[in-house]
C-alpha cells in the first residue's frame, strides 16, 4: 500500500481505511499533526494551526 511522507520528520504514513481528505492525523514517529490532502495515493501536509475563531 502506498505511503505518504511526514513533512516534519520524513516518517512513513500509512492511512487507515476510511480516512477522508481534510482529516487530521498524527504522525506515529514525531507526533506532528498532519492534514490529509489526498488518499489515493496518500498525501499529507502540516495541519493548520488552531485559530482564535475556531470552535463550536
Amino acid at each position, binding site marked *: 500500500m502506498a505511503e505518504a511522507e511526514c513533512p516534519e520528520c520524513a516518517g512513513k504514513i500509512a492511512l487507515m481505511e*476510511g480516512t*477522508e*481528505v*481534510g*482529516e*487530521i492525523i498524527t504522525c506515529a514517529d514525531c507526533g506532528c499533526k498532519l*492534514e*490529509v490532502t489526498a488518499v489515493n495515493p496518500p498525501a499529507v501536509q502540516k*495541519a*493548520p494551526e*488552531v*485559530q*482564535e*475563531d*475556531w*470552535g*463550536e
Partner: protein
Amino acid sequence: MRLGLIYTIITPENKLLLSAAQARGVELERISDDSILMDVHRTGDAASFDAVLQRSSSYSRSLYISQYFEEAGTRVVNSYATQRLFGDKASTSFALARAKIRTPRTIVACSPESARAAARELGFPLVIKPPMGSWARMVQRINDNDSLDAAIECREEMGNVWQKIYYLQEFVKKPGRDIRVFVVGNEAICAIYRNSTEKSGWITNTGRGGTASNCPLTPEICELAIAASSKLAGEGIYGVDMMEGPEGLMVHEVNHTTEFRNSIAPTGTDIPGKMIDFLIQHAKR
C-alpha cells in the same frame, strides 16, 4: 437532492455526519472553506445546492460563506442570522435576557475602566470570557482585583480587538457539572452532563478534560432548551448549555456548530443521524 457539508477540517463529527448521510443513501458533498470564491455578483455553484450543513471550524469563515450561500437561495443549517446571534456571547446574553430566560447576570464593557466598574457591580468571584470564542479558551474565573487586573492587561496586549470587549458574568455556584442539551428542529433529543475533573479544573468542557455522562431529559430541561434555541432563532441544530444554579436551571450559552463526538455513547442517541434527517427535511426542493 444536492446537499453539502462545509468544513475547515474533517473533524470526527464531520466523519460521523458523512457516514450518517451515506447510511441514508444521500451524498453529502464536501465543501472545503479553504476553496470557496465568493463573487458577490454571481452565485455560481452555490445556488445548485438544496441545503448545506455549516460545520466550519472557523467562525469568521462560517459567517461569510453562510451569507454567500443564503444569497444564492440555499438553505444553510444553521442560518447566518443564527450564527451571528449565538456566535457572540454578548448577543446571546442580550437575547436570552430579552426573552426572560434565566441566565447568569452579565455585564458587557468596552474599556478596562468600565470592566473594573462591571466587576464592582457583580462582585467576586466572577467569570470573564471573550465574546467570541469557544472550547473555554480564555475563559477565566476571577477571584479578586489582582486577577482581574492581570486578565485585563493580557487582553489589552492582544492583537484581537474582540478580546478588548469585556464580557463579565457572575460565577454561578453549581455542582461540578453543567448540562449540554442537543436540540434538532423543535425537539430536545438528548443531553449530557459535562462533569469537571481534576484535569479540567472548574471548567466542564470535554475538550479540556471534562467527562460526559447521560443527563435524563426532563420536561423543564426540554422546555428551557427549546426556548433558548429554536424559539429564539428558528428551527436548527443547537447545543444548549445550562447550569444547575441555586435558583434552578439557567442557560449560559447556545452553540450553533455543536460538537457531539463524546455524547453519542452516553446518551445512546444517533445525533449525527438526526442532524442529517433534519438537513434532508429542510432542503429547498
